[in-house]
């Protein structure tokens, strides 16, 4: 494998409210995502995936792993919605797992981050956000799934916030398909483009059921 990776972090809400259809859709979504990326030559050679879940606590269920060895993790829903803990853990993981350019190490590409939540944060999420601001990301996309998600919170995390009107299997799987083509394009850009993706304009068009928050 080449030393330069395109790090992709999936930060997923696994609180109790995700139980049932939503969490099942997330599991299937991750499956679809890895199946699609595995057949994309750009992504297969450069994309590395990590999965971070947050409920009453945050956990990195899969450390940054190349697509060759990645397998979708077993995730279950239960507990609260500690978004701040998720963001803090994300920042820590980026700091330890993503390499910067130095004279003797060719740095990784700027990480892509996809956050998905279905509810109001139950912790002091601002602290986690402050921590996240200390590390450099390429693009952060936040997805609020369902009416209980708070778009104004997500807007403060990233300008790239999308809302799904309901959190069901069709919207969530549409979101994961979109994430997968975003990663594919991201890894294609780095092969050909000399440039990291820097905003939503670099990503594929979103399905109709997404609402991009202004």
């Amino acid at each position, binding site marked *: *494998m*080449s*030393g*330069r990776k395109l790090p992709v972090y999936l930060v997923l809400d*696994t609180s*109790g409210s995700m*139980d049932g259809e939503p969490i099942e859709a997330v599991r299937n979504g991750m499956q679809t995502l890895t*199946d699609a990326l*595995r*057949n*994309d*030559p*750009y992504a*297969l*050679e*450069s994309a590395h995936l990590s999965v971070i879940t947050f*409920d*009453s606590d945050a956990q990195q269920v899969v450390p940054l792993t190349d*697509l*060759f*060895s*990645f*397998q979708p993790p*077993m995730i*279950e829903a*239960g*507990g609260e919605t500690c978004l701040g803990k998720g963001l803090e853990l994300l920042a820590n993981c980026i700091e330890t797992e993503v390499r*910067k*350019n*130095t*004279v*003797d*190490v*060719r*740095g*990784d*590409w*700027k990480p892509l981050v996809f956050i998905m939540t279905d509810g109001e944060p139950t912790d002091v999420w601002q602290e986690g956000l402050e921590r996240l601001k200390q590390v*450099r990301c390429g693009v952060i996309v936040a997805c609020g799934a369902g009416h209980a998600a708070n778009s104004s919170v997500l807007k403060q995390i990233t300008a790239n916030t999308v809302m799904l009107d309901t959190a069901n299997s069709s919207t969530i799987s549409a979101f994961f398909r979109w994430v997968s083509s975003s990663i594919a394009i991201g890894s*294609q*850009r*780095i*092969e*050909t*483009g*000399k*440039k*990291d993706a820097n905003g939503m304009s670099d990503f594929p068009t979103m399905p109709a059921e997404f609402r991009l928050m202004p």
Partner: protein
Amino acid sequence: MFRDAFLDFQKRTGFLQPEGEQARKFILGKNAGHKCVEFMYELYKLWDEYVFQQNKLTAPMNNPSLPHEQGQDMAAIGKEQPHSDMRALNQASDPNAAALEKENRESSSGLPKLPPAIKFWLPNAAVGKPYVGEIHRWNKDGKSPAKVRNLRIDAGWDLAGNADCKVEGVPGRAGDCSVAFEYLDGKNWWDASCKLIVNPDPCQLWREREPDDSARPRKEHQKSERCQAQYFDLLGASLRGRSHAHNGGFREDDMAISVHGNWFVMVVADGAGSAKLSRRGSELAVGVMKDALARAIAEHGERWSSLLDGSEETVLALEEEFRVLLRASAQTVIAEIGKEAQQAEESPLEYATTLLAAFGCMQADSLLLASLWVGDGALGVWAGEGEITLMGRPDSGEYSGQTRFLDEKSLNKEDLIKVARISAAQSVFLMTDGVSDPRFETEQGLESAQKWRDLHAELAPIFAMEAAESELLDWLKFWSPGNHDDRTVAILLRKQGI
């Protein structure tokens, strides 16, 4: 009996009957669903074990039955039996019982199916690569090797269970392969299955596609050139990378070389992927730069040649003249790009390109080289025996993928232009990052004499080949994971024995 089974289960798993606050936590807690299913499964196993024992006591010829078939007999079975050591006792007292049990348990059709919540794991395989993988079971704390037997895999995969009950073979195709097997959990065998992911070969995923017919301007996918002189041989090649071929893009690199007596010009350029007309930008850059330098050589070459062995002062003045010439030529490139952009009603930014240019004079005993280097790539002179002279530095940022492109501002950069006299020069290399990234990887790598020696050793023999130009194009196809950019190289090689 059922209570015994439950108590035994409690003892072994630490599972407590949920009450009050604990019940709430249990139900709302993480993995709640998973825990419930596991609990049911444990009970199910104990019940199955119990029925099995009862069957052996009452009707030795019966196969073990599933609980739902005999569950209604629970009350009729009567007296509770200490179930845990029952089978050991039986086996000790009756050797036939052990054999019978074995027979019963191995009839795979009779084995109960595991609840779907119990999951297994196999490390991923890759098509065409030898594979041995051990089946693991997912636990709460991760995964641990599982005791399995009788692995069954469709013949089409070229995979099978080996003597150690591991999956082994060289998978013949990519995709999700289903592995069926029997799983021993404590005392009982179960029918189970697991998914094995076989990764495709990344080399085979790349496609060759032609750009859209209507796309303008057009550009050839490859280019190569050779020029010879008394003391040296010049070769250049530029090739569309796999990633551009895969998505039907054009080559964005370009290259130009020329020879004028003992003087030569070498230029390579790499158009920015983010700029839509960069293929034209790099084409203009190498063309205009080469022409400007060639014109200057035609006009002043003789005078320059006569000054090469002059006093130190003369040589310093000459070097200064070269610097001025390179800067002025680069400015001509910027102006030409600006002109064309204006005509096309495009921003000059759409023509963004790097530029590496060198010109000089190779004589019997020495090389005089003047160069300009904007952006990434590499420009170096190999003088044999660990001597490498880098003619500048590539630009790179904090993370990968940042570089500088040719514009007025880029010409202010320090050590942009360099003039060097190198007595034992063997070869001069100019290359775009499509070659320098996989070959040198880092800035530190660029300074590694070993890496330059290897490059020289690989490329020098190509000059001796009849079809050196196409051989060099072939060489540019080398495989390096994650490195599929356009590749361009221009090489000057000193002729041996002169």
